[in-house]
């Protein structure tokens, strides 16, 4: 087990290194003049050159690469090109905000969608199953920025039950923060309901049809016993995997929702960084999302293994 963990962590480090390299390559390949960009069109060329020198952009690409990697592995990404603040002061508060929103969205969506998935599977092809499957299909087909905009109009503008600017004020209590966060979290939850419910349903159905479930039923166990002891453990594996992958996505990818609610999570931080070509911030934020992704998928694998003894943990070949 510990050997497995070590190898997984080792491969995670390699993946992160590759991730950092991809970001570096993308940024270097794209044409840009960082000094000019920071100082604007009216700055004299000498100042631009001086800044490029200070930032190291006049050095050979290999040196730039090594410097970039040093920043990555010391988790010290330098200073933001636009605000001049240390990158960590920009990305960690954003990470914290994203985390809160993602957590709330999961709390809202996971129990409901797993329950819906199980109900649908147990009543396969009946009316309630169709209803759940089609609802799931519909909700996961609506882009999240659309559901966010609609929920904003209904709950924040019309009924004033939520806040159109979702950043909670400093020092807000948990209850107050919920007031700010529940509408954007709901928008995210709606999008994920479909995925998770359908995934759970598929998992349960296939487990129901499996040999071990059949054997257990034949041994005379009651159907609820079979469900608890055998089916659920196996059936949830794909659901858990989806959740783990989505954690990374929730942290970095829900730009539409963050934008509609003017929320300063990692997504909008990266969006602004892309717009302003604020490479240090972009690099830091992307790696942060990568790290979260690695850890959540690792945790999911461990959880699946703990639930299902048939799964053998091994580092992929």
């Amino acid at each position: 087990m510990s050997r497995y963990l070590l190898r997984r962590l080792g491969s995670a480090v390699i993946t992160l290194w590759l991730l950092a390299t991809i970001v570096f390559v993308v940024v270097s390949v794209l044409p840009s003049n960082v000094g000019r960009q920071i100082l604007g069109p009216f700055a004299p060329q000498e100042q631009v050159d001086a800044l490029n020198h200070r930032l190291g952009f006049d050095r050979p690409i290999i040196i730039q690469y090594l410097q970039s990697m040093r920043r990555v592995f010391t988790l010290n990404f330098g200073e933001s090109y636009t605000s001049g603040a240390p990158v960590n002061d920009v990305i960690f508060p954003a990470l914290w905000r994203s985390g809160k929103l993602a957590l709330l969205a999961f709390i809202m969506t996971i129990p409901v969608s797993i329950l819906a998935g199980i109900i649908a599977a147990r009543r396969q092809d009946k009316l309630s199953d169709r209803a759940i499957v089609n609802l799931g299909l519909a909700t996961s087909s609506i882009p999240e920025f659309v559901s966010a905009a609609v929920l904003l109009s209904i709950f924040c503008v019309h009924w004033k039950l939520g806040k159109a600017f979702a950043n909670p004020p400093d020092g807000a209590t948990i209850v107050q923060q919920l007031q700010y966060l529940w509408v954007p979290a709901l928008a995210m939850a709606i999008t994920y309901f479909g995925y998770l419910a359908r995934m759970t349903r598929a998992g349960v159905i296939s487990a129901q049809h499996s040999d071990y479930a059949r054997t257990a039923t034949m041994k005379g166990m009651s159907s609820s016993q079979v469900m608890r002891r055998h089916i659920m453990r196996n059936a949830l594996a794909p659901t858990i995997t989806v959740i783990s992958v989505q954690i990374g996505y929730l942290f970095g990818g829900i730009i539409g929702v963050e934008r509609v609610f003017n929320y300063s999570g990692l997504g909008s931080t990266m969006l602004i960084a892309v717009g302003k070509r604020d490479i240090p911030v972009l690099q830091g934020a992307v790696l942060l999302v990568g790290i979260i992704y690695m850890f959540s998928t690792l945790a999911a694998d461990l959880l699946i293994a703990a639930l299902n003894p048939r799964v053998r943990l091994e580092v992929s070949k």
Partner: protein
Amino acid sequence: MTEKLDQLRNSVGPLQQDVIDGLASGSLNRRSFLVRGSVVGLSAAFMGSVLAACGSDDTSAPATTAGGSGDTSGATETTAGATETTAAAGGIKEGGNLRIAAQRPGSELDPISMDNLGSYTPVVTAFEYLCGPGEGAALAPMLATEWTPNDDGSEWTFKLREGVTWHSGGAFTSADVVATMDRLSVEGGKLAAYLAPGSTTAADDFTVTMKLNTPDGQFPYNVCHWNPQTVITPADYVAGTTLDKRPDGTGAFKLDSYDAATTAKFSRNDAYWGGKPKLESLEFIFSDDIATQVTGLQSGAADVIVQLSVIGGEAILNNPEQFTVTAIRGAAHRQLWMNVREGTFTDVNVRTAIALAFDRQALVDTALGGKGDVGNDHPIAPVYEFFDAGLAQRERDVEQAKSLLDAAGKAGLAITMHVPKLQEIPQLAELMQSQLKDIGMDVTLNVESTDTFYDRWCKVYDSKTEPAGCDGGEEFGIVDYGNRGVPDVYLVKAYATGEWNSAHYLSADFNTAVKDYQAALTLDDRKEPVSRIQKIANTDVPYVIPYFYNGLFATAANVTGVVATGLGHYYCDKAGFTA
């Protein structure tokens, strides 16, 4: 001329006398008199006496904004410059936190090198100018209480306000002003064109004199809110220090906390020279687009937004019970540039054809919902007193446009128009594209975020190579110009080889006219060169100016007294919530 008027006239210098004469002769109306008088340093009380002596039926000092004459959309209208939401006299509650949805700072909060509205806002809330916004385009005393020019406008003396203290505790004196002016007059500084280092001197703790490089009858416009980087900073202030590193200033509110991602928070300055503000605190909530600002105001998450556009602002404009919208009629405009030096538009026939393609009234009606003035291909807005209405308005003429294009051998011209994603500009571009189709042109739009757009407009400015100009910009596109009390910025920077000259326009005649205009010390003297400027610009058409738009500024109905300029300033010392 009455004896009383004579007496008043004789107590002031020639530049000030000229303004009084303008009123007496009728060439200046009451409103223009108050604006021009404020620029040359006549006090409100003095102008009140002059008006009384001239037999004006309204003897009050500058009136507050006339409110309430709301048109169908619920917007009230004021003229050029800063505006104040209609004050409900005496009904302001003590305390409260005012939340203003503002543009996100695009750079560090550096008072000297800041270059975008988002960064201006927190900086100019803490720091103040010598002259501040008055009624319309007028100037009002801020850190200077009085200013007077010498006879030829080459030297200006500012009397400073006594008893002002910095947020950090020290007293504000002439040393602070001298140091600030010197910082701004180094090469490349925002006042380098007007002052040399050392040309600002202090006679005593509260009097400074500035010796200008060339005479200028309207110099105070350069040390006021229209030139945002001229905020007065402490004497020992080191260039490059940002506001959040050294939170100081003389303003009505002091910076408590700043987070570029979310908010800037200010608390009231109890020792403010203008009196303790009613509001307890002020919060700027940063947001990236007008859509979130509109929903923020609607939902009660913000109390104030500026730069509302008619398109996208329907929810606010259609709801006059809940929101007060003020339309600021001014000189703010959009400019369609065409590179006259190289490429497609070197032939004036092509540029004229394009100018003739536009149905400007239709553009105003659709893109602005009617809230603007039709433009006539020069940057002199109808609101300026020296505007020459005699120049014929260019009207749409599809046939002539087509024949001009034909004559230039550019029939069926296909070209890309570069457009920033800013307020109504994308819609304007779409409308222009449709109208240009009628003269046979095939225009492709490239609409970009403002983060990258300005590279298309002017990528690098080269001041060393003659003639100076923008390099690397595109040849055709639309750019935004904010409101200014005088057109100097447009004339110098956009037309006369300045750093915003994306058309690469260079005309000796035009530049002479601009020089004549700037050297003119009196209003009458300005009229002739301005008329020339209008004609030359209109004939050469380096830029099409489709319209001058009204700045729209919205507050929740229970907010009053906020003074906004459209250049990132929100003066809230008199603002508050109504009971």
